[in-house]
């Protein structure tokens, strides 16, 4: 079961939330409710679950209610209606004592503008959460210095926070949130106030950090690229309602409505779409050495294809055979096993490789790319045309000529060739 479950959450701001709530239950729109009651429906029937250790991103434009959702989770704002279960405690109905202990032990928050105490040193800021819990000074400082090290601020502990740059201040904010060792980290546009270079840097560090600390992270952002980069799953909000929840790939490949579609249309899909989306799941194959040349030729002719995967009996990937080689071999009429003509020096890739990294593989060979898992089992193949179609933004499935000089256009600024291409011999 999900660690955090939000069920039918509503938040209404204004003079008469109860009346507005009634209208909302009747299914009236945000505008109608504002017209009739002067109340703003900030969250409209939001439900979602967050798994332990997951990074769950809530994305939306300003005014979509995303920050309101976050503030309801730790009750900085009280929801008008709905339940929020953290394990088996209903946060939405918790009394102030329970709530305080939840905030102290279970969840902590990182703020857009850092929310640091300017009159304190870095270490005293980081130790703030423990200070609130009346931990003895020596103990909380020790833990604070440890956390400062974790976020890469070693040596800055005794500086005042005002002396630090924005990126470093947010590290302090992150350290402060981690210092109480919470289970859930609430991050409210945590990197939005940073300049782009620092922001990217912080995103990478958050991903690294998450590998170490394995917290459940709920991350609010208005930046789709950030959401796609950080999120295991993404919830997209519009006008207080959640429009779609899904993995980055699901959001991109299967947008729930026009709103989401318009959102994602300018995204560089090649960084997000992976080999597993493009591949054919059950490619035609021959099993060597059990099946010989004749079987291979027949199978290719029947399907009208020019090459075939070769695996062994345990589905371990061996290589490809090309029809020309197979026909030549058959004419020699000597040996009927496939061994001599299997091209084993072909490109392989893992299912979660983004398309942009498949491009160099495609460029260097005229064979399809085999998708294999960690134990070298064949999962599927990616056709060269699918990669090119994905990158050029065409519908996939359109045959593309073998010579692709200008197809790199969509992925222009990506570093190519960081993927090692094994044996790119062409023939």
């Amino acid at each position, binding site marked *: 079961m999900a660690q955090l479950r939000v069920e039918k959450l509503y938040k209404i701001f204004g003079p008469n939330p109860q009346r507005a709530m009634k209208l909302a239950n009747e299914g009236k729109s945000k505008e109608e409710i504002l017209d009739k009651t002067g109340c703003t429906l900030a969250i409209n029937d939001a439900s979602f679950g967050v798994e332990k250790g997951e990074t769950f991103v809530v994305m939306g434009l300003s005014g979509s209610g995303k920050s309101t959702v976050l*503030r309801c989770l*730790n009750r*900085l704002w009280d929801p008008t209606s709905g339940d929020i279960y953290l394990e088996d405690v209903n946060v939405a109905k918790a009394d102030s004592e329970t*709530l*305080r*202990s*939840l*905030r*102290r*032990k279970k969840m*902590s*928050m990182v*703020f*857009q*503008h*850092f*929310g*640091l*105490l*300017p*009159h304190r040193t870095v270490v005293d800021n980081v130790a*703030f*959460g423990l*200070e*609130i*819990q009346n931990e003895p000074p020596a103990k909380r400082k020790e833990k604070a210095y440890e956390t400062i090290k974790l976020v890469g601020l070693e040596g800055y502990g005794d500086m*005042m926070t005002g002396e630090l740059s924005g990126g470093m201040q947010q590290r302090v904010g992150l350290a*402060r949130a981690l210092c*109480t060792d919470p289970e859930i980290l*609430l991050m409210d546009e945590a990197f939005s106030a940073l300049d782009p270079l620092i922001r990217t840097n912080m995103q990478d560090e958050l991903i690294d950090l998450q590998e170490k600390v394995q917290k459940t992270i709920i991350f609010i952002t208005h930046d789709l690229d950030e959401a796609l980069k950080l999120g295991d799953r993404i919830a997209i909000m519009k006008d207080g309602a959640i429009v779609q929840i899904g993995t980055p790939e699901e959001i991109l490949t299967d947008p729930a409505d026009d709103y989401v579609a318009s959102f994602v249309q300018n995204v560089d899909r090649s960084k997000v779409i992976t080999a597993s989306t493009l591949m054919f799941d059950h490619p035609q194959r021959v099993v060597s050495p059990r099946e010989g040349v004749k079987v291979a030729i027949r199978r290719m002719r029947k399907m009208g294809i020019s090459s075939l995967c070769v695996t062994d009996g345990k589905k371990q990937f061996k290589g490809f055979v090309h029809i020309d080689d197979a026909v030549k071999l058959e004419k020699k009429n000597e040996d009927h096993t496939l061994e001599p003509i299997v091209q084993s020096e072909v490109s392989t890739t893992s299912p979660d490789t983004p398309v942009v990294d498949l491009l160099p593989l495609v460029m260097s060979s005229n064979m399809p790319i085999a998708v294999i898992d960690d134990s070298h089992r064949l999962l599927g193949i990616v056709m060269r045309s699918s990669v090119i179609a994905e990158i050029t933004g065409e519908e996939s499935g359109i045959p593309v000529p073998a010579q692709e000089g200008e197809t790199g256009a969509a992925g222009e600024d990506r570093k190519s060739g960081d993927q090692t291409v094994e044996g790119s011999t062409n023939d």
Partner: protein
Amino acid sequence: MIDLNIGDYIEAFIDWLTANFDPLFDLISAVATFLIDAFEAGLLFIPAWIIIIVVSGIAWWIAGRGVGIFSLVGLFLVDSMGLWAEGMATLALVISSTLVALIIGIPVGIWVSRSALADKIVRPILDFMQTMPAFVYLIPAVFFFSLGKVPGMVATVIFAMPPAVRLTSLGIRQVQKEVVEAAHSFGATPKQVLFKVQLPLALPTILAGINQTIMLALSMVVIAAMIGAGGLGQTVLKGLTQLKTGLGFEGGFAIVILAIILDRITQALGSANNKS
């Protein structure tokens, strides 16, 4: 037109208060007298030169060399004009009035900052206290406390308190919302939020309020002299009533000197706090 004699009602009310709350006024009177006398006795007990050196030292340390030198020369001038005792009496009155104004004003300011209702109630009262001509307080003050230092102090407290309330409230409200939210998000109790976050961050503004309170208290001193509060105000008043221009100016200079020293020191305190 309707003929409303509001003055009559107020008189009746004041009479009623005097008749029914005498013990309370006696208590206030006793506390105030004790406070002022203690400060005055203390300031007069210490030899003038020690005070001059100590105050100049403090001024130098907190507000820089210029203010230090000014304090040394200024206080020496007050002593050589023969106004030392009056100066110390005024200082005692200012210190005790400020103290009381802050003891009342800062908590009220905190209360006002946290409750919209409190703000609605207190704001017009503060407006009244600040805009009502200072002389007018003197009349009921005399009724309740008769002549002397106590009514002077009471009038001074009323006159000087509003900035302490207003700037405390302002300072707390100006604390960045996210910082307060952050404190709450870590499970701070309201008391912890107040003492660990709001008050420390509001301190520069609160200090500015304290500075204003001191300045207003000092400016009230001359007026309080009219009901026998003594001190430098009385010197000025004597100059005025007896047409002794020189004496009046001497008293005036002494007040200005005290004002500048107090102002510069408290202002420096505020801005030093701002920097960190």
